[in-house]
């Protein structure tokens, strides 16, 4: 019977299954960070348990570390305590830690692929919902809570029911100037913030095939914003070439059989998905969110929607609340909305190609005098590569701040936050109330749109600049 990629990965990782019970599946790669792991290690200590496979477990610090001078002590003593706890836990349990001063440090979902840890066919977990990012390699990767982190540390397994499968088919080709971020925002606007609940989404179609690995990571990263358990894209030559630059296949086995295994992962012809959604790629445009969840977005050419036109009372109330929080009036063209801050970073859009796109736009221009803009590379290695290409200089000359890597203002657990009322064009993944700082107003956009907004001081249709 033809199988989906999800079927194949699930079956390969099945340790035990029993009627009326969830499956026990094996986890190939477990990534840890400082915020969701301390209680899990504490649980191990109390129960006198060990980490079963320290060799499959890797940790880094990203969520609450400062992005300013790292040679200085961290002021926030709670953040300091969490980082110290991770250091002790990694040492005591024999887990590799990419610490603040390591050349490999970075946002956990940026360094996994970068270091070649993320590979096709794997099961990957992390105590972070954006673990879906790694699905770009044809892996089954999903976020878990701290109790499950403890479960995986102790057993290298998880008990869970197999999620349902959903295929999102992008039909046709993208128009020029439409980025991966615009595609995923467009998908979420169509299927809704809970449209993928209970499902693993596999993205297919030409437009997806034409994306680079970094663009595919942006797509899979935001699968969770559609409520999906995970997102995945089947491996192809693009995937293999990316990996060959990062790993020695001979270190893990026979190169030709490894590649054969990867290439056998794509869903079989005729495989059945629980749901199939087709989206016309040509209909997608650069997007900006106007509300307080990632579903609330519009194409850059449109105006703020009117709650009176909502389908239900619930939807109307939610829109009104969002517009009130965002301080926006229905009918205002989004391009007339001015901004105070720009954040280019996060596990969604902080990789080298994201910074290159933004740098091309700001090169030789100046950040608007009313805007404060910053670039936070996704990893220490991305930062180094960008500096070798002179991107830091382009950003600094234009008036951007150029920071050390970390999650930074995506969730504002470190000092990088918005002040109440500030409006930010952000390349991150969530525009929830207060996400970037209490009272802060977040508009999710692509790196190109964020760069354009930094220069113009308001949202712009970046396609007009590229012509």
């Amino acid at each position, binding site marked *: 019977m033809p199988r989906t990629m999800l079927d194949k990965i699930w079956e390969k990782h099945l*340790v*035990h299954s029993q009627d*009326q*019970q*969830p499956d*026990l599946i*094996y986890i190939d790669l477990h990534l840890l960070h400082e*915020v*969701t792991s*301390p*209680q899990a290690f*504490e649980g191990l200590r109390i*129960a006198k*348990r060990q980490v079963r496979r320290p060799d499959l477990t890797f940790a880094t610090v990203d969520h*609450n570390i400062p992005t300013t001078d790292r040679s200085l002590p961290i002021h926030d003593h*709670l*953040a300091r*305590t*969490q980082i110290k*706890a991770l250091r002790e836990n990694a040492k005591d349990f024999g887990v590799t830690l990419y610490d603040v001063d390591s050349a490999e440090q970075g946002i956990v979902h940026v360094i996994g692929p970068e270091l070649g840890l993320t590979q096709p066919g794997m099961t990957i977990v992390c*105590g*972070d*919902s954006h673990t879906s990012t790694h699905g770009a390699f044809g892996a089954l990767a*999903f*976020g*878990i*809570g*701290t*109790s*499950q982190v403890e*479960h995986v540390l*102790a*057993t*290298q*397994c998880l*008990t869970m*029911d197999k*999620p349902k499968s959903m295929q999102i088919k992008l039909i046709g080709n993208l128009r020029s100037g439409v980025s991966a971020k615009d595609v995923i925002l467009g998908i979420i606007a169509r299927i809704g*913030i*809970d449209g993928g*609940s*209970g499902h693993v989404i596999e993205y297919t179609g030409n437009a997806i095939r034409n994306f680079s690995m970094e663009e595919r990571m942006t797509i899979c990263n935001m699968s969770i914003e559609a*409520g999906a*358990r995970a997102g995945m894209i089947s491996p192809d030559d693009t995937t293999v070439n990316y990996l060959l630059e990062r790993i020695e296949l001979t270190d893990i086995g026979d190169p030709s059989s490894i590649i054969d295994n990867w290439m056998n992962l794509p869903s079989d012809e005729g495989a059945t998905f629980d749901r199939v959604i087709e989206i016309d790629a040509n209909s997608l445009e650069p997007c900006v969110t106007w509300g307080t*969840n990632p579903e609330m977005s519009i194409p850059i050419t449109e105006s703020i929607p009117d709650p009176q036109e909502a389908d239900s009372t*619930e939807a109307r*109330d*939610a829109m009104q*609340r969002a517009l009130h929080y965002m301080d926006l009036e229905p009918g205002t063209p989004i391009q007339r909305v001015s901004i105070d801050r720009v954040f280019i970073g996060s596990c969604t859009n902080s990789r080298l190609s994201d910074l290159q796109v933004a740098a091309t736009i700001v090169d030789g221009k100046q950040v608007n005098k009313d805007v404060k803009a910053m670039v936070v590379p996704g990893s220490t290695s991305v930062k180094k590569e960008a500096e070798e290409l002179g991107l830091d200089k382009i950003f600094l000359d234009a008036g951007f701040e150029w920071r050390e890597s970390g999650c930074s203002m995506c*969730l*504002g*657990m470190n000092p990088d936050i918005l002040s*109440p009322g500030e409006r930010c064009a952000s390349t991150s993944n*969530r525009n*929830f*109330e*207060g*996400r970037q700082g*209490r*009272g802060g107003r977040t508009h999710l956009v692509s790196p190109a749109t964020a760069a354009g907004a930094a220069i113009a001081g308001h949202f712009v249709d970046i396609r007009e600049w590229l012509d």
Partner: protein
Amino acid sequence: MKPFTSHTGQVVPLNRTDVDTDQIIPKQFLKRIERTGYGEFLFYDWRRKTDGSPDPTFCLNRERFQEGSILVAGKNFGCGSSREHAPWALMDYGFRVVISSSFADIFKSNCYENGLLPIELSEKATVRLLTLAEKEDCSVTVDLLAQHVIDGQGWKEEFWVDPSVRDSLLKGLDRISHTLSLEEHIKNYETGRDA
């Protein structure tokens, strides 16, 4: 984990949809290294006005909901981040049950791990509870064994929970111990894939 069999309590209506975990517990409170002490930070921003003073209109601040232990909210409750601090905060505050027409996947599984019961009722039943609790004192009994919610006036709604989840909630099972009891299977799997 605290076992859950049956719970009777007052309903607190939170009439909002897509309540995300950033609202349930904002990020500045995720820096602790303990599992407890999050209750006072539950819905921190929604409990306060812009100037920081308590917002008397928010459900948790209203006098008559002070004893509430069953939260009812609109669809897709718990969307967003995987932070288990969300169920920790709800439980630490005093909630034992959350009722909604749907829950986000990770939030739901985090609840199960902690003995907080997320119950999916029909949209009609959820709206009924939201409306009723807003108007008058509304108490219900949530019976996990019988898998239903009832009030004193003959209203009854059945709900479904995965049988294995139900079993471990009823017994308050340590799920790690259960997996460790399958050690032989894990070992065989590891040997088989290395071969």
